């Protein structure tokens, strides 16, 4: 196997791992927010709540990422 093939495969595996991590944490958080008492089905209002929660979780993730990134840049500039 040549180096560029290995690098490609590693990149794909990292992307999959990150997606799984996000999926797992998002599921935990939105389950907690939206499912009070688990009923016989996932009802309509619960589905709406989950959909909204997913979007807000992504917003939060992006805000955290942006803030952390600019913090790192500020600290690098200070050195």
């Amino acid at each position, binding site marked *: 196997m040549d180096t560029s093939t290995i690098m490609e495969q590693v990149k794909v595996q990292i992307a999959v791992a990150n997606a799984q991590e996000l999926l797992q944490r998002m599921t935990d958080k939105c389950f907690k927010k939206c499912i009070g008492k688990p009923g016989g089905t996932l009802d309509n209002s619960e589905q709406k709540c989950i959909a909204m929660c997913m979007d*807000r979780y992504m917003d939060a993730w992006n805000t955290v990422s942006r803030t952390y990134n600019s913090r790192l840049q500020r600290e690098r500039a200070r050195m």
Partner: protein
Amino acid sequence: MEGQGATADPQLQHFIEIESQKQRFQQLVHQMTEVCWEKCMDKPGPKLDSRTEVCFVNCVERFIDTSQFILNRLEQTQRSKGSFSESMSD
């Protein structure tokens, strides 16, 4: 890898370093999103309102401050009483 080990390839080594660094960043973003979600998010609404966004920004900054503060203080205690590392390993 035909018996020569990954470290023999400088290009691959550089790639691993960069990706590890990116991964540490990603991991901390996952972690801080989770921590700050608990602190800042009430009921998820149709938009991320500005008050919540400010809370997230402050939460990230203070989380990093806290982490640095703890690291510095641990270093200080370790320096002032050299027995620190021994008591850790007990």
